[in-house]
């Protein structure tokens, strides 16, 4: 075990996979100097052929990733902020998600698109989206959103070593939280949720950076209300470990999904839809989504902050599923 920040875990994963397989290449805007630290030192270590700064041309970077992967490389593309996935969306939605299918399975596309996402840092509407839904909906793209350092490393390694296109959502925030990371070749499989807490009173599914407020909410619920939740980290949105969620709801009968997507067609909506179908028999209360309202994120921090799911909203949602009211805040 080693204590690593999220960004270092990302960096470790990149180093290990680039060491392991020389077909792995990395390109993107400013990956050499690395504003966030995730790709720091890679250029020096692996040289200018394998690690390349690119012009600001998201439109073609995604298509290039497809071509380079189809022609035998393992490609990591840093797309910077998730909003720039929109800018390069053709290469993802029309090409990466479909080329294997359209060619009758002739090709493997080992591509990892890395992006930062989410709000809370006064970055303004064009740098703060969490566009899980459009990617999850494509069908042909794996979608990964780790919540801690160990999974960040293990999932990124799985993405790079895998043979399918993946969008990897880096938890935002410079450097990120510290966490214990297992030594050695630590891989985390796709499609297996983590049960972060096993409580039994209600099921809380929290995605990516929403795990932090969800953990805080779980503490408050336990301490203040004596409510012990099952807290589930899906880790990968595609593939999705529906069974882990359903198993928990089968015990709790209650579901709250915490997701930084905007509400309509959010990932939270989809989890609720799955449970409202396959898990309906065990449901004992309305399913709650704690998401970003259907607005863009503003710059002014006091206006931005309440839009992003926070412990208070999560606590209130869980209590509502239990038919209880939050205590008046002092």
């Amino acid at each position, binding site marked *: 075990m080693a204590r690593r920040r999220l960004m270092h875990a990302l960096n470790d994963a990149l180093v290990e996979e680039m060491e392991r397989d020389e077909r792995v290449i990395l390109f993107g805007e400013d990956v050499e100097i690395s504003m966030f630290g995730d790709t720091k030192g890679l250029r020096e270590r692996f040289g200018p052929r394998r690690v390349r700064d690119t012009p600001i041309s998201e439109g*073609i970077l995604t*298509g290039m990733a497809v071509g380079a992967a189809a022609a035998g490389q393992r490609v990591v593309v840093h797309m910077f902020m998730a909003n720039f996935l929109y800018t390069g969306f053709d290469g993802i939605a029309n090409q990466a998600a479909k080329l294997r299918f359209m*060619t009758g399975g002739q090709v493997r596309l080992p591509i990892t698109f890395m992006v930062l996402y989410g709000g809370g840092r006064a970055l303004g509407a064009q740098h703060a989206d969490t566009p899980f839904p459009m990617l999850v909906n494509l069908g042909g793209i794996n979608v990964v959103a780790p919540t801690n350092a160990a999974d960040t490393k293990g999932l990124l390694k799985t993405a790079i070593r895998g043979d399918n296109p993946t969008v990897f959502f880096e938890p935002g925030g410079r450097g990120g939280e510290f966490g214990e990371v297992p030594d050695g070749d630590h891989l985390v499989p796709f499609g297996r949720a983590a049960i972060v807490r096993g409580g039994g009173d209600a099921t809380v599914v929290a995605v990516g950076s929403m795990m932090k407020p969800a953990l805080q909410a779980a503490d408050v619920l336990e301490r203040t209300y004596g409510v012990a939740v099952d807290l589930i980290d899906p880790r990968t949105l595609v*593939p999705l470990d529906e069974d882990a969620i359903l198993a928990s709801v089968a015990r709790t009968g209650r579901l709250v999904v915490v997701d930084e997507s905007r509400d309509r067609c959010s990932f939270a909506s989809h989890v609720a839809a799955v449970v409202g179908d396959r898990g309906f028999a065990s449901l004992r209360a309305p399913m709650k989504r704690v998401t970003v309202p259907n607005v863009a994120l503003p710059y002014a921090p006091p206006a931005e902050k309440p839009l992003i799911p926070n412990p208070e909203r999560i606590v209130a949602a869980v209590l509502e599923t239990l038919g209880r009211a939050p205590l008046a805040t002092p």
Partner: protein
Amino acid sequence: MDTYAVNANPSLDPTLEQPTRDELLAMYGRMVLIRRVEERLGDDFTAGKLPQSVHLYVGQEACAVGVCARLEDGDWVASTHRGHGHYLARDGDVRGLFAEVFGRRDGICRGMGGSPHVADFSKGIIGANAVVGGGIGIATGAALAAQMQDRGRVAVCFFGDGAAAQGWLGEALNIAALWRLPLVLVCENNGFAEFMPTATVTAGSIASRAAGYGVPGVAVDGNDLIEVWQAAGPAVARARAGQGPTLLELRTYRTRAHTESESGFLSRPYRTVEEVEDWRTRDPLPRVRDRLSAAGVRDDELDTIDAEARRLAAEASAFAETNPWPDPSVVYGLMFHDQEP
């Protein structure tokens, strides 16, 4: 060749490289095969045998054949919705092509892609894009892979005059020039983007766009096989030698419909009969045939080539027609490698 140039008539220029008689004959064979395959597919469409309409390559054969004759095994080609010709120019499998266009089980893409997506990695066809211009990024990426792998491979991207308006072209020229990628960008300017004449959607000229990136841009007569071959040679060689990309503009003409179904929905003509007739007089096939005749190839030899192409097309069409449909469940295995969708 470092600047934009339209060659006057280089195929007659004795200082330029000339194909040997055998090379010419081989290229002619491919061109004839493409023509007969496309005509047959047109007939098959008219006869209601195809699931959808098709975009045929008739009139443009010299482009694919002249360029691909310069390629080697292992080189990559990104193709388009009008891609049957590119595939056949890469020694494609005629039956597999027909079966694909018929949407059948033994199509090269197992019936999943269809006419606009005739891709065959075993022949270096790295996707045929129904997103106009979508191949540009893919080819640029393939060129990057080729450079990494250092085996002298090159990537060629075919795209239309319509596709040249996609911003990806500029992005590709920039990146490929900066990184000296082994890329040849081949614009087949066939006069139309669907029903929009090139001139109404293209400012300046396509070949001249390369200069702004320090990339050679060359425009030649795309209906003249020798010109195409002569322009493609140095472009491919330059790429293979690690000297970076070239933009070729091949000026040709689509003598058939944009899509075979167009007469069914167009309310007015978009070009004159005279214009089409005029271009038919510049048909690329007879020009090569004449040259071969002049080089002493007998008429009956040439007729045999034609007959054989017709036979292959007819045989493949019959094969496709009776080939089974794909098993619908196959779709679930194709989204991901080794992973449920």
